[in-house]
């Protein structure tokens, strides 16, 4: 009973903590607008009703012209600028299934029902004990090509097992509940421009907290192909003229009236964005963004968003850091085998397609993808074909420039922590510092609290 109550308010507190994670951050979840009883999944909802939206967060009173010019200037100033893409495995991915110690008798003892067969999946070349999950063939391929570095036991000391809290730590780059800006947001605040919202891009219908800045603008687009202004009973050339008139209404002189100016700016910016994203709209009769390689076909937005991102980079848009969610739910308390395999398959296949897309477009040297989850899962299975929240988990770095080497060793099952969780062999903040300094060329100390105290792995190939 008492437990009930304390859990009740604990959740409330955590939510509040996360809701404060930055100015402009949305509440943890205002509830998703699925029509009652329709049985739609959240995924369907996102695809069908919110569609894609770009929000410019921050940026003060700058006029859209300034953004327009800023975007152009940023693109011209650094056409070969490096890009970091952050991909979140939501729910706490089971690292012990993604790379599993096939022959370890302790693994089979801890996971009598969930242990994967020892002859499945590709062997992991860097550590003979491990094999890739059979659904992660895409990652195995990239690893064999030297384009994937794995941190098989990433975490932090005194791990927190709340999804929201631990995720928040990873997003703000510190083990602090009250931090209000994301680690990538702080990076942008230091090196970004006041006039280029595309520098920090949430490929989602809302701001990804890792990108929350204190000062500079960032943008959120669910995907570049979904920003439309559909209007009932208006089509064809009249619809085109209507959008032009929307712009013209935004261009009327507002005589210095600040309220009118804000509303006019919104119309103008929206129209400009619509125009910028028009080239990414699927052609009549086609379903996806034109790209040189095939992406997995899925109802989930993930492959579409990655394809859109590659197209945007190819078009020279000055995108610097990007954040998005991987498909699937990794919180596998039960029915783990099927759910996990499905989520991993689509994630890995999409990431492989993205890498191939970048290679085909000659962009691969500019982009690095970081994959993370808020924690790993308990080493011992839980009796309902699932696993509970754990501590250390897995981190991945993908790209043509990565060293392709382990970041910290596989922690093994012989020495678990007092709760039966994997121990961390690398700290996520050390990885962040390395990404900031070695990939983005920024001063980590100004961005990650206590940066000096974390060991930085060598991330890039020599």
């Amino acid at each position, binding site marked *: 009973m008492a437990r009930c109550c304390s859990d*009740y308010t604990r959740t409330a507190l955590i939510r509040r903590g996360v809701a404060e994670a930055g100015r402009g951050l949305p509440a943890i979840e205002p509830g998703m607008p699925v029509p009652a009883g329709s049985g739609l999944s959240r995924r369907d909802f996102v695809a069908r009703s919110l569609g894609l939206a770009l929000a410019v967060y921050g940026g003060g009173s700058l006029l859209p012209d300034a953004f327009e010019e800023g975007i152009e200037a940023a693109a011209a100033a650094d056409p070969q600028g490096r890009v970091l893409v952050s991909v979140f495995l939501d729910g706490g991915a089971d690292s012990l299934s993604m790379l599993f110690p096939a022959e370890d008798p302790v693994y089979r003892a801890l996971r009598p029902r969930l242990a994967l067969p020892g002859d499945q999946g590709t062997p992991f070349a860097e550590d003979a004990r491990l094999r890739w999950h059979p659904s992660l063939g895409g990652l195995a391929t990239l690893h064999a090509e030297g384009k994937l570095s794995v941190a098989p036991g990433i975490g932090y000391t005194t791990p927190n097992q709340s999804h929201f809290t631990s995720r928040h730590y990873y997003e703000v780059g510190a083990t602090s509940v009250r931090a209000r800006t994301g680690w990538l947001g702080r990076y942008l605040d230091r090196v970004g421009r006041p006039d280029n919202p595309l520098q920090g891009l949430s490929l989602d219908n809302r701001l990804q907290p890792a990108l929350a800045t204190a000062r500079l603008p960032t943008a959120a687009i669910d995907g570049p192909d979904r920003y439309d202004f559909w209007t009932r009973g208006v089509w064809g050339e009249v619809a085109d003229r209507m959008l032009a008139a929307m712009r013209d209404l935004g261009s009327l002189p507002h005589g210095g009236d600040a309220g009118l100016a804000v509303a006019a700016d919104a119309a103008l910016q929206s129209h400009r964005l619509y125009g910028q994203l028009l080239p990414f709209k699927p052609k009549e009769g086609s379903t996806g963004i034109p790209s040189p390689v095939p992406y997995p076909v899925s109802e989930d937005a993930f492959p579409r968003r990655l394809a859109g991102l590659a197209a945007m980079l190819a078009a020279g848009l000055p995108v610097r850091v990007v954040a998005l969610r991987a498909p699937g739910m990794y919180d596998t308390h039960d029915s783990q085998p099927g759910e996990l395999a499905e989520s991993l398959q689509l994630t890995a296949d999409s990431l492989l397609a993205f890498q191939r897309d970048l290679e085909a477009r000659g962009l691969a040297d500019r982009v690095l993808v970081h994959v993370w989850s808020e924690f790993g899962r308990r080493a011992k299975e839980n009796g309902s074909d699932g696993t509970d929240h754990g501590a250390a988990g897995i981190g991945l770095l993908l790209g043509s420039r990565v060293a392709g080497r382990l970041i910290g060793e596989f922690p093994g099952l012989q020495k678990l922590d007092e709760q039966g969780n994997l121990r961390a062999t690398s700290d996520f903040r050390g990885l962040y510092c390395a990404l900031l300094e070695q990939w983005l060329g920024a001063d980590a100390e100004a961005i990650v609290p206590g940066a000096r105290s974390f060991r930085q792995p060598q991330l890039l190939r020599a």
Partner: protein
Amino acid sequence: MAIPRYNGRFGKAQAERLLWRAGFGPRQGEAERLAKLGLDGAVRSLTRPGPEKLVGPAPKDDKGRPLAPIDAYGHDHLWWLDRMVRTSRPLAERMTLVWHDWFATSNAGVGSQRLMLQQNGLLRRHALGSFKELLLEITVDPAMLLWLSGTENSRRSPNENYARELMELFTLGEGNGYTERDVREQARALTGWRYTWRRGAGATDFRFDRERHDPGQKVVFGRRGTFDWRDACNLCLQHPRHPRFVVEKLWSAFVPVPPDDATRAELERLYRADHRVRPVLEAVLAHPALYTGPRMVKPPVVYLAGLLRGLGRGIDTASWVWLGGMAGQRLFYPPDVAGWDDTRWLDTATFRGRWALANYALGPYSLSDRKGPTVPNDPEAIVKGALKVLGEPTIRPATRALLLRFARSSLAGAKTGWKAKAYPPLVANAVRQLLATSPDYQTS
């Protein structure tokens, strides 16, 4: 010294602005009727309304069923939106929204539509009344106690959550006349509230429990005493910086530029007397700054409620729930305890959300070339018709000219052939949509 009063013309345009700022926009013909009362009469009709009458069709969901605000997701939002659309006491309803934003409580942390609606009733009861009574009641309101850890705050383990926001957000302003020590001491004064957890029913029977209260001496704002939760509130209400905080924040809900010093001082004097809100509102709503100053962006829920009032449409779909989120305002779910950021309603995502709101609002009135009334192939008539459907909003001549130009050029190539019949309704639909999303209509 008296507070300046607006003494210019009080016609339809001024009444329209007043109805948008102090309510949810005019119904058809309402602005003209209000203008006839003159400024004083108009303001008093808002600040001293009669008993509430709900005017218009009863709200329902998409299947025509009545709303279940306590028992169905999203119906809380619809229920309140309906109140905004149908009320005969628009300022009381608007102030309820102001207090919701002020004492921002989110159901994301409360987890009970019943408790949220109970709090909503409290806010409405005090909408035009005493800030003091409101503060005392909201401090021990169940939803607030859950939201800001009031029931987690006991003599054994004090929780500073409410104490901090009480001063920072509700009564004084961040860092304005209090110290960290005051936060800790106020937290001690506020100890003692608890609830009983009943399986199946959740948190119930919220009450003060002497055993959990810290009865010891506290020092708050330099004053010493065995303060309790009432004292904690009263100490804030008596704080010399409190009146200024309240009147500035109230003012900012109605006028986008800060008051001049003399006006502010007078408003403080009005408020300080007995913490009554009505006299302050009456002064603000008659102030020249409201009528001669710049326009204000309408909050998304005000924008939608006003669209529906202008159209004469009731609540008949649950789409307003997710569309509200898309436009940046889901009632009962403010982004955090600081409420919505009223200076940042519009960006490229929320603009698109408003476009969608307007599109859904106008949907049932959409014209077709196959059925319904014929639309004349006449740009002037089309623009006039659009203004009529939306309740004759006042727009700038330049905006009207632009809409006319759009209609004219769109119809230019449609004099003969199939377009001659097909295009006029298309153009009429487009003009309505453009009008409803124009900078003129997004602001007041």
